């Protein structure tokens, strides 16, 4: 295993540029509070893995979505486990992003030159909430349906263009198969891709700027 890795690495040269970063000394003052961001990232990885697995059995269509989710929970081997992991990590992710944000705030780590990274972090929260919102419709049951009716209704209260925003979000006046498919596409394609991009930027800046002095 190690030899194979070395063989690839000598040609691909992946470990050298990261060695300095991964094996750098870490200031002794760091505490476990600095793990909150890493925990959030671990949850994102878990979400991507379990989400990719769910997408094998999930059918994003008006007529079959609900049945396919039932099948995942009842028939697919370990289906309930994978679905449960996806759901729990989605909820915990929000919690840990907030805790991580709190840590950064209390340590005043948002100050120059790290403002842009605070902004990148804020984007990960927005992307997470959007993923949770679009994912919530996917089981296509009563709770999902009505939650989305109520929450999409909110955009219609925007002055002047509210009605058009509503049609844009729903893909029509009502919540139907069109809404389901666009939420699905956002949930498994657009948002995870955007998340990957933003997280890459986030980590890149951590690497370049180092960890801030803290309190």
């Amino acid at each position, binding site marked *: 295993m190690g030899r194979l890795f070395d063989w690839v690495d000598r040609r691909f040269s992946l470990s050298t540029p990261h060695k300095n970063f991964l094996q750098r000394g870490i200031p002794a003052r760091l505490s476990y509070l600095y793990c909150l961001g890493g925990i959030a990232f671990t949850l994102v990885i878990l979400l991507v893995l379990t989400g990719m697995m769910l997408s*094998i059995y999930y059918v994003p269509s008006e007529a079959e979505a*609900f049945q396919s989710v039932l099948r995942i929970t009842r*028939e*697919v*081997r*370990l289906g309930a486990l994978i679905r449960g992991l996806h759901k729990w990590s989605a909820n915990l992710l929000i919690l840990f992003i907030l805790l991580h944000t709190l840590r950064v705030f209390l340590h005043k780590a948002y100050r120059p030159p790290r403002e842009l990274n605070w902004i990148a972090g804020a984007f990960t929260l927005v992307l997470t909430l959007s993923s949770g919102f679009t994912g919530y419709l996917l089981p*296509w049951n*009563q709770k999902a349906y009505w939650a989305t009716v109520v929450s999409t209704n909110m955009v219609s209260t925007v002055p002047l263009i509210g009605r058009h925003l509503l049609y844009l979000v729903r893909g029509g006046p009502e919540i139907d*198969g069109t809404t389901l498919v666009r939420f699905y596409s956002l949930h498994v394609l657009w948002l995870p891709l955007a998340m990957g991009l933003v997280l890459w930027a986030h980590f890149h800046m951590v690497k370049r700027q180092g960890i801030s002095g803290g309190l």
Partner: protein
Amino acid sequence: MALTDDVFPMDSRRDFLRRFVKSGFGLLAFLFGATLLRFLYPSQVRTRQLLYHPLLKEDDIPRQGVRRVHLTYDKGEKTITMRLFLVHAGADIFALSSSCTHLGCLVDWSRHKEQFVCPCHGGKYDMQGNVMAGPPPLALARMPLKIENGVVYIGIKE
């Protein structure tokens, strides 16, 4: 001091930790692979067959119109009861599933309106099961039905 350093030189501790962490990740990768394979493997490898279950006697088919009936059958250890409708329209006899094609609420036959009415979002179907109003995208599903030796059977995929 010299003693501990000899027994546990720094480098070997570092090596040990490195190996420890690496094997941890290896174990995780293995667990994930095993879970993935188990998840992907079909839960049922037999082809599913249509099994016919007795519903009621031929004499109990309505002369004309709709009758609400319950089909009870065993699936593995579970006993399943489902509501469906037996319809006699003209010369046609057929069975309609009672689950609304919108989000699966159970519809009921309204004798008074001569329609199947869904309690959830106002879906309505005519006696043939065709959508008359509301959000349902499809007609009510017809279930396989056969009549043999005076008994009505309903087919369910096992």
